[in-house]
């Protein structure tokens, strides 16, 4: 990403919309134009006015146009709770785009679980994939459903309250077995989800699965070494070597 310009500027959260249980879509008005970015890149967001929340938080870039940056996040802890509940306008500092991105190509598959949809959504909308699988826990945690359905996305939920019933990884697995697909798969979701995808790759062979990983971060661009992830070949930095890795390079023997 060395050649992509990064910004680091103040911004103001000007709009916030609840789109599912504990999930929000926000717009940040930046002081500068947000640069060109790639799917999978993320930004660091610092809650300037809350000394309590010391470190910035990493969020995937959902969309960015001119000075408007859009993020989608789930309320899980102190920081996201503040963003979810404080009165707007709300001051932040943002830097990015950061990290590497998903591979690009023809006829790829896409598998997303829960919040994992966010970095992939715009690419899905642009119909960049041969087939897309999106799984939610249940209907209450699902978002952008209509728009996904319009694009022929295969939607599932763990409890069957929306779309097919079952884990999205298993629906994807059945598809692979049915179709004998060969090629690249991009994915994003919780760690258990990614591990299962790696098991599937090992079993079916012929596919190259890429996934986006999460680790606690302090800087977001390779200086603090805080986001180290263990792999069989040593540590990698999730923020600057990733967040997208070939699953084999993380879990591989």
């Amino acid at each position: 990403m060395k050649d992509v310009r990064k910004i680091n500027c103040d911004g103001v959260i000007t709009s916030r919309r609840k789109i599912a249980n504990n999930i929000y879509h926000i717009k940040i008005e930046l002081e500068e134009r947000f640069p060109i970015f790639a799917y999978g890149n993320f930004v660091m967001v610092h809650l300037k006015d809350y000394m309590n929340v010391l470190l910035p938080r990493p969020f995937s870039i959902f969309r960015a146009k001119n000075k408007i940056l859009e993020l989608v996040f789930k309320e899980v802890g102190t920081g996201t709770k503040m963003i979810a509940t404080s009165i707007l306008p709300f001051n932040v500092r943002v830097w990015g785009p950061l990290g590497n991105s998903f591979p690009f190509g023809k006829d790829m598959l896409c598998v997303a679980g829960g919040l994992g949809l966010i970095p992939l959504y715009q690419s899905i909308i642009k119909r960049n994939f041969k087939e897309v699988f999106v799984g939610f826990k249940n209907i209450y945690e699902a978002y952008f459903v209509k728009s996904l359905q319009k694009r022929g996305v295969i939607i599932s939920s763990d409890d069957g309250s929306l779309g097919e019933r079952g884990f999205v990884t298993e629906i994807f697995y059945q598809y692979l077995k049915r179709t004998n697909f060969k090629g690249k798969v991009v994915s994003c979701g919780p760690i258990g989800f990614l591990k299962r995808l790696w098991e599937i790759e090992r079993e079916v062979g012929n596919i190259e699965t890429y996934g986006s990983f999460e680790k606690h971060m302090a800087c977001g661009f390779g200086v603090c070494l805080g986001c180290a992830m263990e792999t069989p070949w040593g540590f990698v930095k999730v923020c600057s070597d990733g967040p997208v890795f070939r699953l084999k390079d993380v879990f591989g023997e």
Partner: protein
Amino acid sequence: MSLKVRIGNLELKNPFMPASGTFGSGLEYEDFGNLSELGAIVTKGVSLNPKIGNKPPRICELPGGMLNSIGLENIGIEKFVKVLDELGKYETNVIVNFFGNSLEEYIEVAKILDGHNVVSCLEMNISCPNIKEGGMCFGTDPNMVYTLVKEVKKNIQKDLWVKLTPNAGNLISIARSAEDAGASAIVIANTYTGMKVDVATKRPVLGNIFGGYSGPVIKPITLYHVFCCAKEINVPIIACGGIVTLEDALEYFIVGASAVQVGTANFTNPHILWELIKKMESYLRAENTSLSDLVGSLKI
């Protein structure tokens, strides 16, 4: 109303620089500001051999501070020398933070750095275990500090700064040992050892059990150490601990620091050093005073 300051044989265009380990090699910050405008670049600690660092999780956020247990991960001096070449293009001082697990390792790295033309000065991190002496931290014993500094200094031409660990208790005797042994400046201080337990799992939050506590919350303690040492030590003191705002830096100058290092705050605003320099200029202009008048101006 110049911001210039002399530290030993070095002239800094201003007294603001990053703290080692929070600024990478410096190159990672190219996107965020012109590195030539900083008083100095201080690079991540380097050792003779590469070090893979500690088991994750390596960071843990706490209210007003953070714990890190990076474990001094670094690529080793050999590869690092190539990074140094790249830093040569910036018109500012390049301070290289280094460490070792034995006196010999310290000397060997120091010699290599001393021979490199981009390096302005060496910053010695003494918060490391002395493996030969049963793993006791070099920086907590005045005699070990004296020997270490003396022996390293014998082998180099360049200025040597010594960065103390605050876990030593009384820093004055440690600082004095470093000064007597030939340090050109004393950097006060590194992180405070701390830990956090996840009550639900009964496990330490950090993979390494404990880590270094940094950020705004440590400032009152480090400020006191700087105050105490500034009264007793003749070489310049460079303060480091919890600086976020200009006020924080001013407090350090007032109690006697000649320059300051900013650590954790680089993570909360990658542009912070440049902003502090600007604010410092405005402050000195508004107060119609100079940095040298400010340093040690505490009224008691």
